[in-house]
């Protein structure tokens, strides 16, 4: 893989840990070199300083493999660590995730983990050495392994129950707020969300095959998981990138159509929500004139955000998208649908869509055609300042603000985004 200047993700192990840490009373057991867990914990500063995880952030059980294990193998060390972790730590399940070292020395993880199959609390595993890919990839790998080992097959589907996939906890610093808003709206149209990505439990994972539909909120991440669900448990899926602003209405309609809900009722909910949403944006017209009218923006984000943010800014707020840099690395066959999804806007706007992870190359493009505002990360903010461009912090790493509960999805999140965006431009920060 080619080198990356100022990476905007962590590795596969990072994605796996983000997933495990988002689950209630789940504890990872890292089978890797001593620094992996700590390095990935440190990256949390870049997720808006969030301390997340039942197992206390940096205190994740870890085999800390040194030269001895590299030379002689790490299976005995892993066995010992699982045993002692079960003694010390009280969890609903234990999730062994692996790093580069053991990926290279070829430990038989499955065999060691299977020795604990009789334990009253499940011990499962995923092979997630960093060299397998980025955070998004790691999330997919770990998620698939998790459902393989925990989810109970069921032919019976519960009507009106769905799973949400595709938002990588932490990697999206606003994951909790984003998920909560989508769940709120889905509940309003009469659905129940089983796995949402926020506050999931062992029970919900076990029952995850009983849902009617998986909704993937990213045009890249989570699709592999949904496909796996489909093949293994016969659950169909719908890919719909995180909706923001009035696009949320289309999202709700699509979900409603797919599940054959009462469309009239759904339209009533949409009308109520849009009414509220536009009332707030009406209050905003002066501020819009002052700070946003006719502004051009560039967006540097993973594909999940790339679609939703572009649609909201262009279709609801009349901003002009110039460059949309997609920073996760979707497979070739996913790129065209993503490009189409970003470019299909209500008016004839033609943003340049660039699939690029390398920060330097992204910035070469931005410098060529300087926008008025950038949606990116804290590094972009520092870089943007050099050219007098304001940057809205949205993606990893965000290390100059604290994110606790807010999100930018749906109707309410879009109002927050409008508020903060115009505040930033008015105050000149």
């Amino acid at each position, binding site marked *: 893989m080619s080198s990356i200047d100022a990476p905007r993700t962590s590795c596969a192990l990072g994605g796996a840990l983000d997933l495990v840490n988002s689950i209630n009373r789940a504890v990872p057991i890292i089978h890797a070199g*001593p620094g992996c867990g700590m*390095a990935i914990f*440190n990256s949390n500063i870049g997720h808006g300083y969030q301390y997340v995880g039942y197992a206390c952030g*940096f205190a994740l059980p870890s085999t800390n493999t040194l030269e001895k294990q590299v030379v002689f193998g790490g299976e005995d060390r892993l066995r010992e660590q699982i045993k*002692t972790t079960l003694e010390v730590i009280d969890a609903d399940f234990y999730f062994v995730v692996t790093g580069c070292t053991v990926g290279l020395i070829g430990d038989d993880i499955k065999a060691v983990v299977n020795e604990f199959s009789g334990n009253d609390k499940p011990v499962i595993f995923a092979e997630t050495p960093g060299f397998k890919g980025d955070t998004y990839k790691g999330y997919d790998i770990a998620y698939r392994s998790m459902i393989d080992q925990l989810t109970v097959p069921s032919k019976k589907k519960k009507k009106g129950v769905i799973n949400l996939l595709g938002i990588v906890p932490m990697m999206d610093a606003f994951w909790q707020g984003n998920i909560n808003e989508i769940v709120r709206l889905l509940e309003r149209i009469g659905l129940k969300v089983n796995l949402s990505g926020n506050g999931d439990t062992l029970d919900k994972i076990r029952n995850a095959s009983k849902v009617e539909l998986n909704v993937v909120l990213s045009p890249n991440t989570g699709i592999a998981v949904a496909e796996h669900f489909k093949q293994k448990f016969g659950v169909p899926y719908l890919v719909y990138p995180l909706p923001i602003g009035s696009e949320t209405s289309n999202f709700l309609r699509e979900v409603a159509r797919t599940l054959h809900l009462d469309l009239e009722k759904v339209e009533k909910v949409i009308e109520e929500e849009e009414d509220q949403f536009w009332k707030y944006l009406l209050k905003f017209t002066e501020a819009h004139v002052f700070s946003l009218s006719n502004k051009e923006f560039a967006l540097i984000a993973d594909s999940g955000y790339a679609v939703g943010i572009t649609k909201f800014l262009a279709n609801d707020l009349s901003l002009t998208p110039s460059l949309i840099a997609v920073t996760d690395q979707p497979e070739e066959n996913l790129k065209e649908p993503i490009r189409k999804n970003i470019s299909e806007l209500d008016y004839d706007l033609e943003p340049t869509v660039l699939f690029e992870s390398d920060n330097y190359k992204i910035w070469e493009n931005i410098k060529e055609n300087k926008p008025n505002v950038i949606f990116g990360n804290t590094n972009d903010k520092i870089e943007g300042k050099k050219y007098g461009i304001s940057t809205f912090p949205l993606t990893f790493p965000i290390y100059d603000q604290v994110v606790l509960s807010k999100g930018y999805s749906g109707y309410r999140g879009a109002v927050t985004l409008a508020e903060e965006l115009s505040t930033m431009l008015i105050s000149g920060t």
Partner: protein
Amino acid sequence: MLKSKSEFLVPTREERLGTVCAYGGSGKDLAQCARGGCLKNKNRSFSQSSACDEMMPLLNAAMINDNVVIAHSPVGCSSMIPGVTLLYKMEREMRELPSDTIKAISTNFGENEIVYGGASELESAILEAENRYHPKLITIISSCAAGIIGDDLQAVVNKVQPKIKGTIIPMQCEGFRSGSVATGYDTFLVALMRAIEPPKKKKKDTLLIVNPLTISHVNELEIERLLAKVGIKVQYFPLFTDVANLKNASEATGASTLCNLMSNLFLINMEKKYGIPYVEPPMPVGIEFTNWWLRDTAKLFGKEQEIEKVIKEEEARVIPLLNEIKSKLEGKRAFVGFNLARTLALQSLLDEFWMETAVSTGLEYSDAYGLAPLENLNRRSKKEFILQIGNFQHFEWVNLLAKEKPDVLVGGIEYCSTGIRQGIPVAPVLPGTLYVGYKGALSFGKELVRSLKNPSYANKISARVNLPYRENWYSQSPFKYIGDNQ
């Protein structure tokens, strides 16, 4: 298979100094054992994530001016860069350096590199670094993956150096090499010696000070103020320093350190190679250790008498003020959490406030930097204190905090957040915290007083926290899992 081809591979701290990465017991027992020769390095059969050998070179190299860091690794090893960028930003602002991002490139090891080797990717990353930033220095940081597949960093450097204007320095610091983070410091500092040129002239009255990332510039200013009084000029090595000032480090009159945990092998090698005499006193925190540091350092310049005058002046000014603080802190019990070089120094300051240290921690212990301050404290402390030596290891801290119930936790961010979640107010030592020297003693004393005044956040949060440990963990020995591991 793992032995490097590089002549620049430093010995691990375990090999060179008999460094111990796992110990639990009293400070007194540790010192006695060290003297008696019975101290042995151990492991843990239960462990939690920790710092690794790759971290120190990666994070510290990022703090050198005009340097591009190339992390020769999968992309995850660079995860910690964002976290320190904030620190980088703050520290640069304090030094009135222009705001910028850290220039760091990951070679983004994938399965392809695992099979075919990462040399060509590294080569192109170096060329990209040159084209993009024209840096004066390029530091290459190795990783577990690169080490295991056996990439020869030096060969790549030899090949591309003719095309590169700046100096390229490879750092062989695979995360699995050593359990001691200080090995990473040795790797980092000794590798940087390749940027140092033979002296053109010897500077007079110039002290080379090794500065760690965690002693903020506010503290360096206090040291500069004190040394200026006796006519000693300061040159820092290597953080926030221009490459030109790394190159001429060989011209210094003498060398000292603000962190004797990190500087040891570098100072030895600098003396060997350039004849620069050095001292390695404990960190100058609190009156006693500050005096110790100043006396040792002044000796390098034959300024023993001059420094006594400074010490006398400063003490006369500060001690009455410290006595006021002392009356508010006397008898309070503390848990001091950080690396040992710093915890012992902080402990010395707490002792001067007549506080009691219940527990002190360290990431590792070796006689080279630990024994003298430890014996000093053992002598001075009214009660014995517990020492926890471990590369982090949260489960031991929570056990100790639950048992000892200190009034305050003094230390680094991971320790402090742990304290808060167990209902203990904190006096954090952060970037920007002034705690070095006489000014630092006063300033940090006031911080300690404030920390005890309003524990509301710790009280309320701790009532809501469910730590993941089993109930019976708290009744067992915190050091139960120290021994041999598999």
